[in-house]
């Protein structure tokens, strides 16, 4: 009973973060801000959903499986966000077309 209540609360919170992350990805003006929204959905959204599901898991294998998925997404999600941001940055300081292009970094060369 308590477990079910906890699951519902945690999963709803996770869904809220996923929705917020998606809205951010759609509405933010820039790659970097969108990445910021993405990582909130990745970490908090999935984290809360898995935390809620932990109360529904039966046995150690279920719990361990869920925790492993959580750890994997945490680690890979954050690093991937960093790598995408770094690639966009060093590719030529490409900015989104929705706003003014920022001044380029002087050490990135002309063009």
């Amino acid at each position, binding site marked *: 009973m308590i477990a079910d209540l906890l699951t519902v609360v945690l999963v709803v919170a996770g869904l809220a973060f996923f929705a917020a992350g998606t809205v951010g990805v759609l509405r933010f003006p820039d790659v970097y801000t969108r990445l910021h929204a993405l990582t909130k959905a990745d970490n908090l959204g999935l984290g809360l959903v898995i935390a809620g599901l932990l109360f529904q898991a039966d046995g150690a294998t279920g719990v361990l499986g869920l925790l492993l998925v959580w750890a*994997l997404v945490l680690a890979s999600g954050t690093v991937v966000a960093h790598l995408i941001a*770094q690639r966009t940055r*060093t590719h030529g300081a490409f900015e989104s077309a929705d706003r003014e292009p920022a001044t380029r970094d002087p050490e990135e060369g002309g063009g």
Partner: protein
Amino acid sequence: MSAVLFVFDVMLLVGIGGVAWHCLTSTDLFRAVVLFIALGLLLSMAWVRLEAPDIALAEAAIGAGVTGALLLITLERLKHLEALSPTGRDPEHSTGSSAGRALLSGVVIALVGALGLLLIRALLAQPGQAGLQPLVDAQMHRSGVDNPVTGVLLNFRAYDTFLELAVIVLALLGAWSLGRHESVPARPVPGPMLPGILRFLTPVAIVTGVYLLWAGTHGPGGAFQAGAVLAAAGILIVLGRPRRLPIAPDQPLRLGLVAGVALFLGVGVHGLLFGPGFMGYVEPWAYWLILAIEVAATLSIALALVALFIGGRPHEEDR
């Protein structure tokens, strides 16, 4: 509950149709590739809804992951080739009159529509029955494994799986016959993040692959899924190369590639010689034969997929 799942299925169908349409009609190739990866994930969810977790695993691993990485590297090589010898052809400008194209599109749409209607009619006209499940369940105690999917794939219909493994090796031979490997240097990624995440992901991928192989005997998993995840681990190693690819020794590579097919064929002939007929297993040994075939097949599939990802024949004169 079934109403909620119905809504889920409808959204999934709309999503699959929409993503597939945009993927095929996209003029930007990179966008098409990313849509293809998304399509692979959606299809995997569709397999989950069709109660086929084995295929969902295979679709996620091969369709979304390995093929996605393969298409990305293909895109890079296309740009590389274009940079070397620009053809000057504008890909957006198609040849032929617009009336001719409209007529062709109309004919194609009409044919596809007719095929779709025929399929729906055939589906609705099926006699209601449980399918093959009762037959398979009745014979599962003779198959040597607990998972009915593995029992069908590697025992009752082993011949089909054997031919599928041969097709993968043939596909690799076809790719190798097109030319030698030409290394395009990867974009240098400064900083410790990329090596760090590769150092973390590669062992996790290898362990997951081996786990899926073992789990295939009694749950969703099996040789194809394990091979695809191990191929993902191999792709991570290939992507992490500092300057150029580590050259794989030639003989072990070729042995590994044909090990699956060779062992499968050996077991099949063994069955021919010792009783149950071609591709029949002597019954007390069925589990061990299946396990041996799966291990060899996993190795072959993983090596073949990584070799397909690398592309051309390995350089022999660079030793």
